[in-house]
């Protein structure tokens, strides 16, 4: 088992640079998740690690081996595709054993490994079926089985759950987490779903426009984001942001009034953004904010408010109170929960 190291990795498509010098270390046995909005380069980065995209410059190492210019077949990785990419003319068993058969493994060994993978993924009753006779979740399990069978050093997942319905996605998420515990291999997982990222990852890599925004443990990113992008991307519903202006020891905002703070503020009059997570806002008496909508989900309710400045805020409540749209309420919060960002989006600490 081995980790993966990226050093100054750059990808250009013609004149367009899409990955701008990424440095990253994924430890041996770690579950690393790449998240980011569509088009941020996370899939491209994964495909570069797999060898399906050429690396324009920089180097990629798997364990101690430099694999930057090595063919995908020799990298010792297994990849699970978003679209599963099962061989449609082969049965489930043949699909899983195909790679081993092509690399000249003896029949008995292939059968044993396929049976083992089928047991782990509960695919035994399906071994003789063709992919078209399987449901989406089953196909996904076969695709994962095909990866397991080869016993690779590194598993790569390219948005494996995005074609499944919500219920199945939760189920498969648990299954992938279990798989990682059982096999203990290094896994790199690409998703745009931050819930998947939070629940699966040992380490999250937040990407934006071909650059790493922040790397860290899920809760570290949640509790201590380095910049406004990460703060807004991690956490659901997203963090509320309110524009303000720096004053001595406080930030003046139209959305939340005066926010006192102890962090080092930029010069007086500079733009500062105040960020507050929905659970840190409390509705109280007052008439500053207007209720737009209440989403009651049972255990939790989300109240959508509009601030005097026109900014939208979401408040999380753990009761089932229903507020009429149009009603005026007040907002309170603990200033220690507020995060401040400068005009470039960097966190002020």
């Amino acid at each position, binding site marked *: 088992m081995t980790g993966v190291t990226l050093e100054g990795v750059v990808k250009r498509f013609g004149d367009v640079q899409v990955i701008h010098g990424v440095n990253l270390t994924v430890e041996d046995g770690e579950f690393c998740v790449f998240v980011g909005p569509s088009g941020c380069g996370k899939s491209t980065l994964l495909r570069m690690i*797999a*060898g*399906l995209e050429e690396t324009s410059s920089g180097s990629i190492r798997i364990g101690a081996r430099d694999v930057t210019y090595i*063919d*995908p*077949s*020799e*990298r010792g*990785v*297994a*990849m699970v*595709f978003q*679209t*599963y*990419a*099962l*061989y*449609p*003319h082969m049965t489930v068993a043949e699909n899983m054993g*195909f*790679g081993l058969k*092509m*690399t000249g493994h003896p029949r008995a060994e292939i059968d044993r490994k396929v049976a083992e993978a089928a047991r782990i993924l509960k695919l035994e009753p399906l071994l003789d079926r*063709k*992919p*078209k*006779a*399987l449901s*989406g979740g089953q*196909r996904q399990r076969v695709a994962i089985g*095909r990866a397991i069978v*080869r016993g690779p050093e590194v598993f790569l997942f390219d948005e494996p759950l995005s*074609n499944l319905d919500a219920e199945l996605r939760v189920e498969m998420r648990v299954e992938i987490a279990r798989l990682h515990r059982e096999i203990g291999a290094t896994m790199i997982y690409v998703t745009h779903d931050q819930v998947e990222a939070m629940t699966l990852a040992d380490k999250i890599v937040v990407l934006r426009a071909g650059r790493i925004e922040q790397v860290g443990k899920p809760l570290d990113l949640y509790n201590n984001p380095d910049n406004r992008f990460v703060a807004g991307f991690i956490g659901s519903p997203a963090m509320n942001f309110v524009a303000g202006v720096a004053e001595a020891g406080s930030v003046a905002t139209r959305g939340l009034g005066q926010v006192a703070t102890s962090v080092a503020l930029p010069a007086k009059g500079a733009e500062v953004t105040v960020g507050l997570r929905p659970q840190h806002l409390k509705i109280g008496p007052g008439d500053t904010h207007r209720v737009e909508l209440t989403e009651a989900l049972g255990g939790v309710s989300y109240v959508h408010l509009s601030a005097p400045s026109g900014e939208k805020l979401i408040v999380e409540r753990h009761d089932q109170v229903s507020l009429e749209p149009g009603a005026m309420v007040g907002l309170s919060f603990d200033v220690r929960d507020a995060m401040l960002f400068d005009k470039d989006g960097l966190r002020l600490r």
Partner: protein
Amino acid sequence: MFPRPIQKSSPVAQWVYTIALPVALILWLFPLLGVALTSLRPASDLAQGNYFGMPSGIAWENYVFIFTKTPIGKYMVNSLWVTIPTVIGAVSLSLMTGFALAVYGFRANILVFFMFVAGNFVPFQILMVPVRDMTLNLGMYNTWYGLALFHIAFQTGFCTLFMRNFIKALPFELIEAARVEGVSEWRIFWYIVLPLMRPAIAALSVLVFTFIWNDFFWATVLTQGVDSQPITAGLSSLNGQWIAQWHLVSAGSILAALPPVAMFFLMQKHFIAGLTLGAVK
């Protein structure tokens, strides 16, 4: 639903349909019916000018005659000797060129592809003299392999266009998945792409078989004599031999039309839609 069932359209449309369909069918089949009927006419009917009326009797002996008294059997065998190698050659070559053009993004890809396609735009009649001279110089004039070789050369362009587009339509992730699994490119071609190409191979085989079997032009340009002429050229020489014996030429034509039909039914079970079902999503 499209097309809408004819039963659901207006009475006028239904009425037009019931008239137009048989008319179109008769128009379409009329020459063939004429040939079929003529092939069963006794020679005396034609001598008396009864070309389109009811035959005075059914003359099966026309078929017996062309088999026993003319070299039509040999012509048929010649045709097979030209057609089968051409089908195998053109289809297998174009599978490989098609794979290369569809899967690899090398620099001159589009240019090479364009040249394969552009070859189809050259009217082959203008090549008649140079090709004949070339075959003579190569010592292949009047041989089955000379004819087959030139057919392969001329067919590969179209076949490459066909195969390249078909392979391009396969989910590319299948090839990538196999690559990541450590499967070599040749094996990807053999074990992943070829099985999924079955409908295309069947369709193209039938098409090329029919093209080549029915080819008259190159058959007359590149071969002469019973030893090497295929059936199309052979039939026309029958015509010269029995100037007024159209019933025999018709019988020969009907026989000559059978192999492509047989080929179609032979390959029919391979025309399956949805072979890649279940591969992605």
